[in-house]
């Protein structure tokens, strides 16, 4: 739920949101996020493209639900969920 609106998230988007909220206001590296989502299958993706896609979608869904832009890109490192 965000702003009393039900967010329709995929499993990976949900995992990402949980990971962000558990590490709010901290810089999270792309590697750590990929590892959290894919676990032992981190190498399966081959690159971080899937991560960018899911973060973009999650950000879009949060914004559509009326939330501020919580997910900030940290150049060269990863992302930060700022609250």
């Amino acid at each position, binding site marked *: 739920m965000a702003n009393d609106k039900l967010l329709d998230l995929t499993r990976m988007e949900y995992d990402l949101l949980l990971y962000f909220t558990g590490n709010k206001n901290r810089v999270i*590296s792309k590697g750590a996020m990929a590892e959290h989502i894919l676990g032992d299958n981190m190498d399966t*993706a081959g690159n971080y493209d899937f991560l960018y896609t899911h973060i973009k979608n999650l950000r879009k869904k949060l914004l559509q639900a009326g939330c501020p832009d919580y997910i900030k890109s940290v150049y060269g*490192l990863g992302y930060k969920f700022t609250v």
Partner: protein
Amino acid sequence: MKLFTRYNRINLFATVIIFLLSGLAFYFLLKYVLIDQVDEDLKIEQHEIQTYAGKYHQLPEIIPVRDQRTGYMPVGKDGGERQFTSIWLKDTIEKQPELFRQLIFYITVNNQCYRVTVRKSLEGTDDMIRSIVTITLATILLILVVSFFINRLVLKKLWQPFYDSLAAMQQFELGKNKRPQFASTNIEEFSIMNETLSQATAKAHEDYRYLKEFTENASHELQTPLAIIRSKLDVLIQDENLSESQSRVVQGAYEAIQKLSRLNQGLLLLAKIENGQYTETATINVSEKINVKLEQFGELTASKGLRVTTAMDEKAVIEANPELFDILVNNLLSNAIKYTPESGNINIIVEEGLLEISNSAASAALDESRLFRRFAKSGSAKEGIGLGLAIIRQAAEVSGFETRYVFEEEQHHFLLITDKN
């Protein structure tokens, strides 16, 4: 070619050559002796004629005998020394050519010189030679056949301990607790060989165990410092004063540490599998497991635009350790997803005793002899730890399955044969 087959061939060849040469020598010797015997008879005939002529001053009357022909021919002068020759003449009765031994000598009776020809048939001699040669050849053949079979039986029995040891060695696999058992033998050479093999396998086993222990211990020991480095880097990236270039360096270090951690975990997993820590088995429905995994990888396959098709026998089950089979299927699918080019295909076939996962190839056929080795990456391999296929093979072997790779119709096929029968 088996050793005793080769030995038998050489032995047989040498025996045949020796027998042939000795047979030829025997034949010529026998012929020489028998002709010499006939020549002696002819000399006696000569002596009798000369004695008769000396006594009665005339040549003896010729009595026709089948095997002997005598003839006198008056000649102008003495032809000199007697001569022995062999000559083919027609048989007077059968009209067939027949070999004769001929003696020609000269005798003077009442001032008339005669050329005397005495011929003795060699037919009897030839018959005897033929009989002797036939008997000799038959004996040689019998000796060869008997010697061949005796050699075969004796050699087979003599070499049996060697073949037993060979069979024991063929069963031997490093990493398995079962050591080869060599049957005791009273043949010294084989006994020494067995002892040497026992010592060598024991040494190899021990070395392998030490190496495995070392890998396992090193992996365990590495975990803590790796975790510390990661947490320190995590603290470091929280620093808002990091410049862009510093951030890139930290990110690079973070990714390298992450890869090292995964590598470490892979080695630990391999060590666990080798140590037989996945022994409990259960009946697993293969298609159910595949469906669960496909759901887990669903978003990943969708993000790459991969088309996954399945043809699964829903009743196909296997007996395996659930955790190990999960690792196996996971790695097979993960491998297929990773190496399938975007918008490519992945096909999954599940049959009783077989699981096949094939994917569109972005590269040419892979070298199967190296494919399942640790850290053996093909030229096109993307960033990975290089243990995925090694884990697959190890997990398959421990589960009693067989892994195969086939490249067909521009697709990589990975086969897991769960029922070798």
